[in-house]
């Protein structure tokens, strides 16, 4: 059996990021690490992916996005009672690290907040993988 061909265990991550170059790098690096990736640049796109694809294992989310809504609006809607994505872990990766924003995100129940410029991609992906596999942060 060829394990490389077996994609049934592959996790799907929805990356929501408005900056195209960053989005491309994140997607590539996640794919190289064995994740399947879908990308969105606005919350609207993100919602429709969640509705259409269904099987999303985690969300990688930026704060400022294209369109009217920010990452915080997305989290508020996603983590609300009865929402289809309530149990999907969300990792916020943003350069806007004011304490009140970080607090708001954490209150809504995101899994982790990374300050973008402070972390290497491989570091964050390692943490996300560990968390998805073991439930540990």
């Amino acid at each position: 059996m060829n394990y490389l061909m077996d994609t049934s265990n592959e996790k799907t991550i929805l990356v929501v990021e408005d900056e195209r170059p960053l989005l491309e790098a994140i997607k590539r690096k996640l794919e190289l690490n064995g994740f399947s990736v879908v990308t969105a640049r606005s919350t609207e796109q993100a919602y429709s992916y969640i509705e259409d694809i269904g099987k999303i294992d985690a969300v990688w989310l930026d704060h400022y996005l294209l369109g009217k809504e920010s990452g915080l609006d997305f989290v508020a809607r996603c983590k609300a009672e009865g929402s289809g994505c309530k149990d999907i872990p969300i990792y916020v990766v943003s350069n806007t690290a004011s304490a009140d924003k970080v607090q708001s995100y954490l209150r809504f129940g995101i899994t982790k907040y990374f300050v973008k410029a402070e972390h290497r991609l491989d570091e964050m992906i390692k943490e996300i993988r560990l968390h998805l596999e073991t439930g540990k942060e």
Partner: protein
Amino acid sequence: MIKNKPVENEHMDLRWVKARADAVLESLGEGLVVVDKEGKILLLNRTAGEMTGWRPDEVTGEKFLEDVLPKENEAGERIQFKKSILQEVLKGKKITINALTPYWMVRRDGTRFPISITVSPVSIDGDVIGAVEVFRDISKEHELETAKNEFISLASHQLRTPLSTVSWYTEMLLAGDVGEITEEQKRYLGEIYVGNNRMINLVNALLNVSRIETSTIFIGNEPVDVAKVIDDVLSELEPLIEEKKHTIDKHYKDKKIPILRADKSIIHIIIQNLILNAVKYTGENGTITIDLESKQGLTLIVKDTGYGIQKNQQNQIFTKLFRADNIQGIVTDGTGLGLYMVKKILEKLGGKIWFESEENKGSTFYVNWPASGMREQRGTTHLISGQS
């Protein structure tokens, strides 16, 4: 006739004194209020009236200063004039509230403007009989300060996005994610990566400084194991310490260190700055001694065998953007912001920093945290840990 002359002169003198005082008070560009020991207004000059919307004759006599000219902090909370200011002044102290942490004066119509204030005691023959408050409208300074800080904050945020792009793409090239690279290419990319990281640290330092200066920083209050924080910082700095072949003497190791009530991330930043400085400003094979003393609060001692600071520049070491002459050719990646930031933040927390230094022998830096712990502050921003 001759007898009356001196009396008349005395009257003349008193009238002259009064006229002179009135002229000074009326032409003064600052608001001025005199109160008695209870805080009742005895005198209010024209400028104070014009600034706040009151006529001096309406408020002098029976009215209390804190009712007529209420003051607030930035968040809009009332300042208890009698309790927190007047009582101190009656003990003979002079109180100054400057433009860096201004109060707001509330006008008769409910609108407000930022002020700097000085309140001083008024005494006769050594007995304090009241106080005089002088205040100035600092709206212009305040606007400039706010604009400056907003600019720094915005610019720093905007700078971080392209910095992230450079950082992540370089990381991927170095990792061979898009194909193998030669050793020489690897070295070149390594330089880009290091240079970019320096820029990230500089932007973080600027952001931190602007946050401290705007007082928007959040200072928490939690139990902190300072010895553990030192260990964490040392393990972060391990690659640099190894590269410079320094010996680290951990004198605090066999001591029982009390738990400090403070903000852990801020303690981390302070310790990180001091140890990083010791490592950076000590030539190869140096010794860095770290100790904790739990007398009068907790004192951190970081001693190095480094380049030291020359005597004639020691008074400038905490100045923003200052870098000593003797290290400018040796250590090129200093920002001149680290110690400035540490000092500012300690002033806010109620802590102290001082040092001893001799050129070419080394420096010893001391930081003292009061036993009562750090002052809490409910701000909106956090400081960013990083090497400034």
